[in-house]
């Protein structure tokens, strides 16, 4: 079996991923929304709705901050996906992607390189919010294995959301269009159990949250913080990530084909 093409593809993915990461760190406008905005939201939610733990039916938790960490990680990983999409759209606007089209590399490597970088941003977001949580008194009930599990899930979730961002960027080819979905991130999150227990949401959010894949992902990220690791929750979380990631991959592939046909 000839492994040379695979190794070459991995080298391309790794080089494009490294470029994307450098881009994110050199341009604070890509990184700041991923970490700063969810951190501010976490601060407001925790201080403003901290007494929510006293509402009948609220799950047994050490504190409201513990409950909110998963929501902030979700928000950050989704914004990492949007940021990755904006960066890809800027590459299209500046002609960088056209040059890659002309290069002898696999088309999928262009998207995978960006997704790998978005996954790393998700990992960074996981470390950031777990760090904030521990500094301000949260407890990770599942201990070190729980921390590792959260980091893996956050990385996978960001990669999946990156697929949706990439699909939008490839379809629209304009950063302003991808930027325009920013409010949509909040709409989808508000309709999930990311920030509050699903059974305490008001209708219609309560009903929608029961089948929103983001609820599965949020609950999976939350479980190791507020309780022991549950294989059932991990399975549902991976299922949610697979739904989002699968949709992103299919849409990206279709958008890439359409762009190649138009080129």
């Amino acid at each position, binding site marked *: 079996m000839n492994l040379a093409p695979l190794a070459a593809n991995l080298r391309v993915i790794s080089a494009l991923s490294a470029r994307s990461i450098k881009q994110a760190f050199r341009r604070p*406008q890509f990184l*700041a*929304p991923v970490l*700063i*905005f969810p951190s*501010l939201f976490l*601060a*407001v*939610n*925790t*201080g*403003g*709705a*901290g*007494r*929510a733990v*006293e*509402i*009948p039916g609220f799950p047994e938790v050490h504190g*409201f901050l513990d409950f909110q960490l998963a929501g902030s990680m979700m928000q950050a990983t989704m914004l990492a996906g949007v940021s990755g999409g904006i960066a890809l759209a800027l590459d299209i606007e500046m002609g960088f992607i056209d040059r890659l089209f002309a290069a002898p590399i696999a088309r999928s490597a262009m998207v995978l390189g960006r997704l790998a970088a978005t996954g790393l941003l998700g990992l960074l977001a996981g470390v950031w919010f777990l760090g904030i949580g521990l500094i301000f008194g949260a407890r990770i009930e599942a201990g070190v294995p729980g921390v590792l599990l959260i980091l893996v899930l956050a990385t996978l979730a960001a990669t999946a959301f990156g697929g949706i961002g990439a699909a939008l960027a490839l379809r629209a080819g304009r950063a302003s269009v991808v930027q*325009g979905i*920013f*409010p949509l991130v*909040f*709409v989808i*999150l*508000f*309709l999930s159990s990311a*920030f*509050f227990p699903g059974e*305490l*949401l*008001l209708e*219609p*959010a309560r009903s929608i949250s029961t089948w929103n894949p983001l609820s599965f992902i949020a609950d999976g990220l939350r479980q190791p913080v507020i309780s022991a690791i549950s294989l059932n929750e991990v399975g549902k979380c991976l299922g949610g990530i697979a739904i989002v990631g699968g949709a992103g991959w299919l849409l990206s592939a279709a958008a890439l084909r359409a762009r190649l046909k138009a080129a």
Partner: protein
Amino acid sequence: MSTVHVSAPGAGAVGSPLAMLAVMMRRALNEIIRVPGAAIPGVLAPTIFMLGLTSVFGSLTQLPGFTTDSYMSFLIPVSLLQSAAFTGAATGVNLARDIEQGWFDRLLVSPAPRPILLAATVLSASLRSLMPMTMLLIVGLALGVRFPGADGLALAIVLAAAFAAVAATWGCTLALRFRTQSAAPLMQASMFMAVLFTTSYAPQDLLTGWLHDVARLNPVTQVLEAVRQGFVGEVSWADTWPGLAALAALAVVLSALALRGMKRNTD
């Protein structure tokens, strides 16, 4: 780009301060008329936040001591101020763009007094903020927000529009300091904090930790409570004057900072 014709004193109507103010405001409002699509995110975002946060945190009204059983009625004043704040931040970004493109330098060498230039910019923000506020009120009242009465509604709109002017003054101060649109996240984030680090989610007694103290010291809390009173109870002078005083104090301090920034830009 429109041109402002400022004639010599006494030579025509445009030379009067009010006429200059009107021409400058008209220019600032042109963007809405010429690029209406650009206003859509600013109109939709506060409405989405109001609906979303109501769905998420609506059960907070079950807490003993919560002042209303309708969370959307409690939250709509926050969204009104949020829309005003983001309109103000956008005004700062627009000024930064004018500075980058050299348009503002041309205004500074015109005979128009500095306070007129600043007043036109920030008052246009007040007018622009009426768009998202109208949308919010229509959606909110249609979905069951308590009608605050004619006096409560008028008070809420006037205070929120005045807050848009204050937010725009802050945006202008930052634009004059940094002279680049890259300062936009700073303008937006500071406004986000100013509005939400208040009694935005729950009454003062139900806030926890650091937010309990910050909300008490944040002057925007007084503005928010004045806007909110009609939506959760009766309008009273006792709940109104602290909001007016806070707005006046913010306007004086921030205007002084913005005018200082203008002076620094011309020295």
